[in-house]
């Protein structure tokens, strides 16, 4: 019976760790002497969970509202399911080619116009 109570109490502590709620470790330890090691491990997990939470708020993280360079604003809101992720589409890879193609066409047009201008001037001299 006592074991079951202990287990239920440890589960409550584990729930608090999972929810990021504060745990009074000294009080828990004094109530459950025999579960000292389990509590010590849970306390280590509390710091791990807190670290993961804080890493999600890291300045470079797309989750962080202050993130500057990573993705669109839609990628930075808190709920991962409130927004659509970037889909893979042919446009993603084509956009770069389209830009360089436009540039190449512009250069060719300029060269063509220069050649035409020089030809007209040469003919006019004759």
């Amino acid at each position, binding site marked *: 019976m006592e074991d079951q109570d202990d287990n239920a109490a*440890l*589960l409550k502590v*584990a*729930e608090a*760790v*999972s929810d990021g709620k504060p745990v009074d470790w000294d009080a828990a330890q004094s109530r459950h002497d025999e579960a*000292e*090691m*389990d*509590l*010590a*491990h*849970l*306390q*280590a*997990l509390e*710091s*791990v*969970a*807190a*670290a*993961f*939470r*804080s*890493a*999600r708020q*890291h300045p*470079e*993280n*797309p*989750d962080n509202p202050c993130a500057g360079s*990573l*993705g669109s604003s839609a*990628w930075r809101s808190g709920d*991962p*399911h409130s*927004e*659509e*992720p970037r*889909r*893979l589409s042919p446009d993603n890879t084509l956009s770069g080619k389209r830009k360089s193609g436009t540039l190449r066409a512009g250069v060719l047009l300029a060269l063509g116009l220069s050649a035409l201008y020089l030809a007209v001037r040469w003919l006019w001299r004759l």
Partner: protein
Amino acid sequence: MSPGASGTKSSEHAALSLESTAALLSRVSAGESAAREELLSRYLLPLRRWAHGRLPDIARDLLDTDDLVQDTLLRTLSRLQDLVPTGDGAFLVYLRRALLNRIKDHLRRLRRRPAREPLKETLLDEKPSPLEIAIGRETLAKYDEAMQRLPDHQQEAVMLRVEMGFSYEQIARYLGCRSANTARMTVARALLRLATAMKVANGRPG
């Protein structure tokens, strides 16, 4: 596309978003692209956040974490039948291991490459990731080791809640639990088992 068709498509997506990850995976294996899209939208962004915590700032400047995550996820989905063993939680557990291995590989490669910027390489060797800064390299290594000792479905529960920060409602949906409360208990039990597996060497950590 007609409004009716668009409505059908969005209601199909809404229905898929309620499905468990295991159910979606079997649809992906059967070649359903909508299920594949749903899985991508479910896990891509949370996995990116997760990977950001695992990499030192300097390494993030040198490699594209987002591409690394996207590539790993797409590769896993395209080789689902060969790579992912059957069983609850196996998909996320596999993805987690694959990502950790790829991150380690990239860091090793960055350290080895010819020194164009020697200062950065030195920093790469010494600079810890945000997670290592917060809890220390040793504790994180112990945690990762202990995670691998848990059954897949418990690893998945810890990953979804502790590492990715999903709500219990979402976890219940993804794990196929009856309710958010069941998901809460699943996570708590997994954490207890993880605590036992961690075997913190010097008793209570300071």
